[in-house]
């Protein structure tokens, strides 16, 4: 643990990373990051473009496996279990650690099918009635039910951008994940849709461990209780969000959040 990371003690971590290094071919993108995230707090990853925050986020559910040149070293555990162990079922892992992307990417199917798809392939619903319950519950938790309940069989792609993003969050929730990773979930949305997603994140807190990557520092300040600042592939500082934004310990953090960065 470096000095920067020792400011915060996370009890009962849901996920832990220890000395994680990521390489794209010869280039090292992540230089030994150790961090814990828990269920009770929303954790925000901030930092300038290319700092490695998204790359690191994607190691948490092995999304980097899909990049041929990517190589991950170090240890990442979910409830103490090594997610890079050969015995780990990656499909199962990604159900437990769900992900929401920058651009809403609903399937070109109905709203109902967008939600039902995951539970169906994971065998979570025994009957049509079970599935109806899952779809309603997921859409309710995603804050979308009231807006779509009368048109569940319309196409998901016909929704507005903000609704599509909430549909994607509903889709992630439907398979009962433990962790939800969000990679810039609001960067394609207008301020109202953004506020709805932020409110949703607030409501989902505690039920899932939530990690959000954001370029928008105000958003990190608004939605998270823990903030991690990444720079040049390093975790520079990790702390309570209000401390990071009022009194950062590291010079690099201060320069970044006050708008003095390079």
């Amino acid at each position: 643990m470096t000095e920067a990371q020792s400011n915060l003690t996370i009890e009962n971590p849901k996920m832990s990373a220890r000395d994680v290094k990521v390489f794209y071919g010869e280039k090292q993108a992540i230089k030994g990051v150790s961090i814990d995230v828990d269920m009770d707090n929303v954790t925000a990853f901030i930092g300038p473009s290319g700092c490695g925050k998204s790359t690191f986020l994607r190691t948490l559910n092995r999304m980097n496996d899909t990049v041929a040149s990517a190589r991950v070293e170090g240890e990442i555990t979910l409830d103490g279990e090594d997610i890079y162990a050969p015995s780990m079922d990656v499909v199962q892992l990604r159900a437990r650690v769900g992900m929401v992307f920058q651009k809403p990417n609903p399937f070109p199917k109905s709203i109902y099918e967008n939600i039902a798809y995951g539970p169906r392939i994971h065998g979570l619903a025994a009957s049509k009635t079970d599935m109806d319950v899952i779809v309603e519950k997921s859409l309710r938790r995603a804050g979308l039910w009231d807006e779509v309940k009368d048109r569940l069989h319309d196409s998901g792609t016909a929704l507005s951008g903000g609704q599509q993003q909430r549909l994607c969050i509903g889709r992630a929730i439907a398979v009962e994940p433990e962790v939800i990773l969000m990679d810039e979930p609001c960067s394609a949305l207008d301020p109202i849709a953004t506020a709805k997603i932020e409110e949703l994140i607030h409501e989902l807190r505690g039920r899932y461990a939530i990690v959000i990557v954001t370029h928008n520092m105000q958003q990190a300040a608004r939605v998270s209780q823990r903030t991690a600042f990444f720079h040049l592939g390093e975790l520079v500082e990790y702390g309570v969000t209000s401390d990071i934004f009022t009194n950062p310990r590291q010079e690099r953090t201060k320069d970044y959040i006050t708008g003095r960065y390079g």
Partner: protein
Amino acid sequence: MAEHTIKAFDEEIDRLRGLIAEMGGRAEAAIENAMLALQRQDKILAAEVVEGDKRIDAIEAEVEKLVIQVIALRAPMANDLRDVIAALKIVSVVERIGDYAKNIAKRVPLVASNRHTLEPISLLPSMGQVAGEMVHDALNAFAARDAELALAVVERDTVVDDFYNSVFRTLVTFMVENPKTISECAHLLFIAKNIERIGDHATNVAEMVYYAATGQTLPERERGADIQPED
């Protein structure tokens, strides 16, 4: 300190700091001139101090407006946030300091008539000088973001408190012996109390400077024994 990527932000912060420096300088001069007017029975100088307080009040209003604008438009963070919050709090305190100096100046004509009878007046200039220096140093500490200098101001507050207690006893004794001077002595007592309050306010400014510079609040400190309850 490195510059902001957005230059207008730096310009606003600079303007804010410039206004506070000007305000501090004016408050300091007001204290000095009020004390000088008292010593010399200079009613014209005293009237100038009263008039000059308007500019101090105007700067306070200007800083408030600018701070609101910076918070709304720039969303300052970390040391920038602490700076603008401290600025907002400091100006309201310095405005009070200006009022105390004005109040002292307003009493000058009321103690002028029997000056030759009032020996205790001799203690007040030194007391005023210490309080004025505290104001000066507190605002210099803000300008330089100097936490050490701010601490030194806080520690000096007891000197002013001790002065006040001494002046209080002297004046009471003097009044007992010279009942005819009670009216003038009562004004001097208020003047002493005003200076003592200026010292307290300079201490408050220094505490805010310490917070802005370090992000830490100063622990509660022991205050000097006070004869009268705080007003």
